[in-house]
């Protein structure tokens, strides 16, 4: 049941069909891109539904029930409805900025998956700087949020955009620094090799005491902040900024932001799975099932956070990052470096 074999077989038959190699590669890339896109779109829609269900059951409700079995068609209905909605461009907006913001958010959210291994051999392109690429790409989201906030010509949106800019910039630092020990130990930037470095369960980076769990916690906190979710959902704090940066967006553009948010959440969890939880490594089941399962557990954790905690204030958010997370992550890095080079602690 390894999906990779199927793809390999398809690729082989394509290569044997007599087309020039260039065309084969192009077709394969496009197909891979489309498959990733499709899978992610389905995952994002599923996540929206799942989030509503999780929140409902935490709150002793049912959540969507009347659209399909237990509301499984709910998010599809939402998407179809959003497509039908009128696409308003308010009069005073900065048109190009306003127009491109959701598209950038959407594209940036999906681009990261080029370098994430979904399973054994299931990767669009095994970049040798994979992790660097992913971190660079995920930062793109912030540009789109800033554009949305600026372009909307709305004070709430502007405040939301500014908040998200400040927030993501300050949480990017601990996030990257918390990843560094992993790279240090794995000795590579390639995602596939990082996964392969965690073949046994005790080799998962989360279990490499003491630096592993700390790095994992820092990463999850920073990741929550990156994806603008409670308790760090300041850019779209409903009770303060109405809807934050996307206050002026309607219809399809809003749907793009909405989907991008959930894809980002999945991205953060997928990276965490790859870096800390051994990626697709696991016995018995096919590798992609392991990957999905681990990622969804992390997603569930993020949802659980969201439906439990109140929101931080903007200055406290900054303080928490700069005064606590950044020093902690650097200390963690030093510990990891020390461990790496001491002979009596070699994994």
């Amino acid at each position, binding site marked *: 049941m390894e999906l990779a074999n199927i793809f390999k077989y398809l690729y082989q038959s394509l290569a044997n069909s007599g087309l020039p190699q260039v065309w084969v590669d192009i077709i394969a890339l496009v197909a891979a891109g489309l498959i990733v896109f499709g899978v992610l779109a389905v995952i994002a829609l599923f996540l929206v539904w799942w989030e509503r269900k999780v*929140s409902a059951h*935490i*709150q*002793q*409700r049912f959540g969507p029930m009347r659209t399909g079995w237990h509301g499984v068609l709910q998010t599809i209905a939402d998407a179809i409805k959003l497509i039908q909605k009128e696409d308003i461009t308010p009069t005073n907006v900065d048109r190009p900025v306003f127009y491109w913001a959701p598209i950038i958010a959407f594209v940036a959210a999906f681009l990261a998956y080029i370098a994430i291994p979904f399973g054994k051999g299931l990767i669009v392109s095994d970049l040798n700087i994979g992790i660097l690429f992913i971190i660079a790409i995920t930062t793109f989201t912030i540009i789109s949020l800033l554009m949305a906030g600026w372009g909307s010509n709305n*004070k*709430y949106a502007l*405040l939301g955009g*500014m*908040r998200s800019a400040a927030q993501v910039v300050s949480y990017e630092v601990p996030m990257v620094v918390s990843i560094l020990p992993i790279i240090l130990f794995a000795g590579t930037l390639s995602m596939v090799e990082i996964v392969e470095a965690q073949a046994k369960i005790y080799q998962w980076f989360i279990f490499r005491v003491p630096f592993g769990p700390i790095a994992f916690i820092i990463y999850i906190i920073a990741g929550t902040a990156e994806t603008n979710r*409670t*308790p760090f*959902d300041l850019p779209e*704090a*409903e*009770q*303060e*900024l*109405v809807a934050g940066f996307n206050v002026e967006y309607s219809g399809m553009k809003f749907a793009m932001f909405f989907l991008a948010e959930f894809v980002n959440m999945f991205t953060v969890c997928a990276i965490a799975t790859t870096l800390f939880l051994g990626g697709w490594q696991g016995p018995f089941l096919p590798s992609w099932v392991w990957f999905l399962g681990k990622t969804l557990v992390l997603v569930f954790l993020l949802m659980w956070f969201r*439906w*439990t*905690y*109140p*929101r*931080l*204030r*903007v*200055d*406290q958010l900054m303080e928490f990052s700069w005064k606590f997370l950044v020093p902690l992550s650097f200390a963690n890095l030093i510990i990891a470096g020390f461990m790496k080079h001491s002979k009596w602690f070699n994994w």
Partner: protein
Amino acid sequence: MTASKALRTEEFLVNMGPHHPSTHGVCRFLLTMDGEVVIKAVPYIGYLHRALEKICENRTYPQCLPVLDRFEYCTSMSCEYAFCLAVEKLAGIQAPERAEYLRIIMVELNRIASHLIWFGTTALDLGAITPFLYGFREREDILDLFEMTCGQRLTYNYIRIGGVSRDIPSQFIPKAKEFIDKFPSKIDDYVKLLNENPIWVVRNRNVGILPPELALSYGVSGPVLRGSGVKFDLRKDDPYSIYDRFEFDIPTGKYGDCYDRYLVRMAEMLQSTRIVKQALEQLPEGDIKAKVSPQFKPPKGEVYSRIENSRGEMGIYIQSPGDSKKPLRVKMRGGSYNHLQVMPEIVKGGKIADLVAVMASMDIIMPEVDR
């Protein structure tokens, strides 16, 4: 994010409301902001000015009660109670013993319900969504008790001049007792969720400090005043009805910040359950309503009667011309009116998120302000 002196910053105006998720209805703030910092906040009210006082002037006394229900809909029972007490003082009517007890039970249950709304919306304003739903879950149980007794969930029209409209049904007492018994454990859940949660604490501690002198000069009352450390509760200090027969404590705060106000209200819910418990035990048999004709005319006179509502002092001023079925003037005074007035003083210099926190902790409800 305070701007350094070298950097030229520009203040800008933000219009918060009247349609804004955190303004608890339709309050509008015109904020002068410097980045995220609120420099000046000017409240604009009147978006829910329904002319209740004018309407009351053109209704007979029993007809005023449904209008009073809508004065402060979170605690309709208290509004009716305040009005009925005022009219009873005016006309010298004494409600029967059982009615007094039923009133107290209802008013205190309603106080819990109102505090649960506050609890939910406060948590919601600060970003925690789940406590909101937990609060409303318990509130539904109280509303069941009300609906069983008087038939409505929100606008009860239960407390009448000279008593109450109907006796409680037979299932009421066991159900109320069941609720009273299980409610403290629910409060426990809330406490676990929020009280010590570091995020909650940093959001509320030292935010919106209201010193007692300022509070008194602005006429702030109720849990907000008690949060500032002034131990003043009309139920104890100016006991009306039969409150002097019950044992309960008055929780007070220490610093007068949002967190103290939060703690005071949480403690008050438990105190209210205590009162209800005692009242249910002491509940005597007997009549539930003194005879009052629907066409009754109180003698000439005027009275200002006040009770302790969940949002502070609720006062009703009635002037009766003496020869009419209708009052000459009904003036309603709600706690929120003064609480909103003092808000610009205490949100100055805070963040916009603090404004939301302060507004939530003041428990402002707009019909009480606008009437």
